[in-house]
């Protein structure tokens, strides 16, 4: 105990000494290296966010960070996030020797669709760097965006291996989960590339590698369903999409899934079933979304409303609107949200620690700098959540239009039958096992009205297509 207390005392006094040194440099030093010197001292006293603001100014002035400090910069980006460097031009970040800053620059380039530069910048990224899986994932997606699927898939495969290794070696549960999600993202994006190349079977087998317990798994169901759609296995499409009706997945509502269900019914000439999906969508989901829009639109100019919405108890959200709870649950599971929130909390704690120090010109300067960055971070998270929610509303409206087209198609097909004096051969049947396409590893169990966790995602309908058995019967005059 004594040793521990002595250690903490020494560390505390060292930290305080560094802070005082930084203050002296701030007052006395007028050299070009002033900002770098302050950064070093504040970093050593563990005021990471404050130190980052001085490093930013040093880079913005056209200077390059010395090689021996690159590891510090990596730590800084992990501890504070990269928002503090948002005002620095991508070219200035690219010029640095720090791989963390190069990675930050690559994201900026990616957003500007400068994929070629992204690939070039990240090509020599060291695989033993902490950011390697994310950097190689970015590179892989950039290569895919340039339609270089072979190289893109190679990068994504490499990213998956690295992320899995990091997850395995990590003893911290949160980090292990983080790298597992990154590994799954790499795999999903490979499956997406196969989908784009119309290698649907390959895509499906990759999607199957995602464990059902994963956060990313519910999102893969719909993507898998699209692959089955192109393989004309509409019963499997409907089975996969019905998984979203399971109580365990009640937080996941995807307008696109409803559309794909209706489209599959249409392909099987089950017009009444397609009509039921369209009617339900219009009467229930669109109504609920309009309510949601009213609530969100009233607060659209707030810089904190959406962030606060995700912070409180889930039960409170349920009373507001059923979708708010679902969206909040989904947002909370996003990597970006979790990391940004941790960084924001850390920054607020650091600001509070600085406020407790003796108030002078230097501490006021630090406080001002930190307040600006914290406000920026808060607004960015708020914007991220707001965008997620409004994207959902837009998606509901977009697929409402697409479903309208499906219902027009249904009417048109029905009219065609009428004019030709034809009728569909079969009325709606409950389905049969013989209509199910399955491989040797898949077993058949009848659905008994309850969703079992281990069965989720393995459902298939057994409906017979009505199109194949059309019977021509002339209407008698």
């Amino acid at each position: 105990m004594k040793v521990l207390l002595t250690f903490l005392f020494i560390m505390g006094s060292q930290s305080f000494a560094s802070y005082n040194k930084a203050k002296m440099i701030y007052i006395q030093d007028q050299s070009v290296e002033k900002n770098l010197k302050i950064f070093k001292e504040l970093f050593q006293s563990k005021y990471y966010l404050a130190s980052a603001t001085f490093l930013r100014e040093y880079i913005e002035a056209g200077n390059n960070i010395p090689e021996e400090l690159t590891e510090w910069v990596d730590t800084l980006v992990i501890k504070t996030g990269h928002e503090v460097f948002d005002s620095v031009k991508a070219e200035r970040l690219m010029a640095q020797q720090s791989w963390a800053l190069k990675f930050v620059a690559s994201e900026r380039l990616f957003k500007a669709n400068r994929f070629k530069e992204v690939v070039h910048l990240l090509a020599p990224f060291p695989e033993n760097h902490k950011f390697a899986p994310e950097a190689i994932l970015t590179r892989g997606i950039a290569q895919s965006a340039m339609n270089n699927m072979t190289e893109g898939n190679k990068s994504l495969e490499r990213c998956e291996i690295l992320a899995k290794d990091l997850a395995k070696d990590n003893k911290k549960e949160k980090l292990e989960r983080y790298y597992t999600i990154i590994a799954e993202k790499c795999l999903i994006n490979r499956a997406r590339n196969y989908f784009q190349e119309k290698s649907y079977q390959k895509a499906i087998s990759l999607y199957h590698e995602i464990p059902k317990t994963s956060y990313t798994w519910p999102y893969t169901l719909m993507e898998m369903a699209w692959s089955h759609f192109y393989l004309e296995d509409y019963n499997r499409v409907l089975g996969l999409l019905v998984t979203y009706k399971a109580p365990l997945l009640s937080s996941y509502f995807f307008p696109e899934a409803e559309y794909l269900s209706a489209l599959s019914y249409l392909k099987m000439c089950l017009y009444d079933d397609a009509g039921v999906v369209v009617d339900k969508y219009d009467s229930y989901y669109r109504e609920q979304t309009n309510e949601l829009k009213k609530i969100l639109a009233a607060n659209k100019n707030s810089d904190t409303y959406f962030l606060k919405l995700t912070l409180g108890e889930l039960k409170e959200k349920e009373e507001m609107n059923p979708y708010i709870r679902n969206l909040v649950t989904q947002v909370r599971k996003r990597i970006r949200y979790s990391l940004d929130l941790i960084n924001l909390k850390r920054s607020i704690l650091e600001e509070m620690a600085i406020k407790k120090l003796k108030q002078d010109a230097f501490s006021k300067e630090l406080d001002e700098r930190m307040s600006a960055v914290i406000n920026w971070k808060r607004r960015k998270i708020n914007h991220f959540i707001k965008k997620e929610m409004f994207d959902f509303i837009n998606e509901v409206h977009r697929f409402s239009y697409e479903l309208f087209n499906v219902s027009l198609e249904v009417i048109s097909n029905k009219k065609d039958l009428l004019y030709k004096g034809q009728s569909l051969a079969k009325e709606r049947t409950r389905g049969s096992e013989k209509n199910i396409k399955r491989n040797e590893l898949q077993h058949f169990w009848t659905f008994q009205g309850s969703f079992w966790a281990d069965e989720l995602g393995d459902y298939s309908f057994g409906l017979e297509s009505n199109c194949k058995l059309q019977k021509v019967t002339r209407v008698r005059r």
Partner: protein
Amino acid sequence: MKYALIAAILFVTFKIALVEAKDNVIIKYKKYDEIDLGNLEIKGNLLAPGDLSVQERERVRFSRKLYLRTTYKDEQDRDVYYLR
């Protein structure tokens, strides 16, 4: 000269009288006419079909382009935006 003047007056008077007489012409048309269709003879070929018929044709179908997903480009972009 005197005779010439008289002759000219007479000529003008006669001309005016002639024009006025033309304006008062009443043309009378036949109030009734009779055409005997039985005696009419028309030469030519019969082109109209003997029986009434409606030609069947395919009903025009307006093609609606239903949305089909072909890429996950937006989702892939979002995966990069949502990293650190």
